[in-house]
């Protein structure tokens, strides 16, 4: 196997909630809980899960915008967490991010041209003339015309703003692109344009990409490999095709079953969703999913399931993996 570009080992991130009179935190929320993941060069990793599952915190840790309380992140073979600000800044250009809200993520007082030029000024060391040429080149790559470049964010549509965001992210020629819900805020008719653009760029530049989304159809289409998160833990990971067509973890099955497809089979179907997401402040013991799981047994309350192998590269964290549970896993 190729050496991982981004390697995450046993990463946890705890946030203090509330304060005692002594200044000690009242509770700790473990937003990310013992996550192991790796990203190979050129690979697209999909990260799915519902709000509060820790996918955005994990993305921020990958960006070194946040630091793990435990565990280690390595980027390009070198430690990536716990660097000094100076060390970080010199390497930031290699890993860039695209955000969910394309309008809010651009500086309202900068033109599109200035937004795209900024990372070049910070990282490329090019002179002004070369930067101007490079901005025009990047704009063409993301499908913006010259007249868009002199506009401010509020004068551009959501799709055009996201194109600026993408141009800005690839300006420094990064190795990794982290896209946090890059199409969720866009109109349905614009989503396909931006997804196509991301796929194009990824292929052309040979980028690795982490694609965070709650939209399962989109992740299935874009990602080579998918990791499913529930309450801070990764419950299933594997090649997208296998995870989506043969989900092994009961949570993945429930999630996939809830997606309304525009197909006749979906009509007036009763969802097999049980219960509510427990509070992340006091997640259930053992397997976090057991309170909503149709096949939970007593051991699930005691033992924390490890993410064990299903196939060669497909893994799931379920104690009842491979057992005959009387449920057709495919139909959940």
């Amino acid at each position: 196997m190729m050496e991982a570009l981004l390697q995450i080992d046993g990463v946890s991130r705890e946030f203090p909630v509330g304060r005692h009179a002594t200044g000690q935190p009242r509770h700790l929320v473990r937003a990310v809980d013992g996550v192991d993941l790796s990203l190979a060069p050129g690979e697209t990793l999909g990260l799915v899960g519902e709000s509060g599952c820790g996918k955005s915190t994990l993305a921020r840790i990958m960006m070194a915008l946040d630091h793990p309380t435990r565990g280690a992140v390595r980027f390009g073979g070198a430690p990536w967490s716990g660097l000094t600000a100076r060390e970080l800044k010199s390497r930031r250009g290699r890993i860039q991010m695209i955000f969910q809200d394309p309008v809010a993520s651009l500086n309202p007082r900068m033109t599109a041209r200035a937004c795209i030029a900024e990372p070049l000024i910070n990282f490329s060391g090019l002179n002004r003339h070369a930067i101007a040429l490079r901005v025009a080149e990047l704009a063409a790559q993301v499908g913006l015309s010259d007249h868009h470049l002199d506009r401010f964010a509020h004068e551009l549509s959501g799709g055009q703003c996201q194109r600026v965001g993408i141009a800005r992210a690839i300006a420094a020629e990064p190795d990794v692109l982290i896209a946090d819900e890059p199409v969720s805020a866009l109109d349905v008719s614009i989503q396909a344009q931006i997804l196509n653009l991301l796929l194009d760029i990824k292929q052309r530049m040979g980028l690795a990409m982490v694609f965070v989304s709650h939209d399962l159809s989109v992740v299935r289409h874009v990602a080579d490999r998918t990791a499913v998160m529930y309450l801070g833990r990764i419950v299933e990971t594997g090649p997208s095709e296998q995870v989506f067509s043969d989900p092994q973890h009961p949570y993945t099955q429930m999630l996939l079953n809830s997606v309304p497809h525009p197909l006749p089979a979906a009509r007036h179907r009763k969802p097999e969703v049980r219960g509510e997401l427990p509070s992340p402040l006091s997640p259930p013991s053992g397997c976090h999913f057991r309170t909503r799981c149709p096949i939970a047994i007593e051991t699930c309350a005691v033992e924390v399931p490890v993410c064990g192998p299903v196939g060669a590269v497909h893994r799931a964290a379920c104690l009842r993996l491979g057992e005959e549970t009387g449920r057709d896993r495919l139909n959940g």
Partner: protein
Amino acid sequence: MTDTLRMQTGKTVLDVRNLNLTFGRGDNALHALDHVSLSVQQGEILSLVGESGCGKSATMMAILGLLPKRAATVRADAIRLGETDLAGASQRQLRRIRGNRIGMIFQDPMTSLNPVHTVGFQIGEAVREHRGASRAEARHQALRMLDLVRIPDPARRLDAYPHELSGGMRQRVMIAMALVCEPELLIADEPTTALDVTVQAQIMALVDELRVEMGMSVVLITHDLGVVAATADRVAVMYAGRIVEEGPVEQVFRRPSHGYTAGLMRSLPLDGQVHQGRLQEIPGSVPRLGEAAPNCAFAPRCVFAKPRCAAEVPLPTDLGGGHAARCFEHSAVFADLADNDIVRAWQ
């Protein structure tokens, strides 16, 4: 011009004919809605589909009389709820109808609930206001509603404040508030957009069940064709202030007949898609209010557009069975989609 598109069967709960809405006056007037006609039968779920700014929420605001009089001009041949004329109703009359005969739920359950009152109080408020119920009666009704929307341990939740509930629970409370007066019509404006898929599935199933239990009609505003396929009986697709296609859900999915509907269906990444292959995009962007093309507003983005589309307003073409589309090229649109996975699945 008359734009009534559908067959009328059963009792009509909501009937809107040729609704026009403009913001501002004179040369600066912006036309937000153009000859929008809708009808909802008893017990039916009608889905309004479209992207931001297409006028789906504006249609409902106009029907409910919630648009500011000074800025918005609403003209319509008829807006009727059962036998009641809403177009000519005073604000006082409308206040007796909203929350009573028409229930409403909105996209964001956090900002639509009052943070300083308990959910029990907020649910009971409508029965006290509209039915003159006492505090004790209102509380009893609120408890019954919390139970109806399947909130576990309803007696305890009655005294909870909105911030103590999860997003899904809050949306259930919104539904309880909307339904406490047993309305004839429920208007749900993107009720699940802010929620996760598993919660969305639960909420949509709940709306569907309550509609049957209470014999209520629903207008469901959404941008998600999956939600339409799962719950709606009929669908009206809106683009730039017009209804461009309308019909029973099965027929519209089986024979999409407007370039825009077709474009939406083609652009979805489905399971059958080549992995990481190119998705079919709709070129261009959604026109801003007042910047839409004058005749067929979709023509500049439509792959099927002919010179005629830019020269004439397409009137609804009747395609049978209550299905109609405002598209000159509806045959070409459908022919091109014959091997689309979604369309084939519905045939």
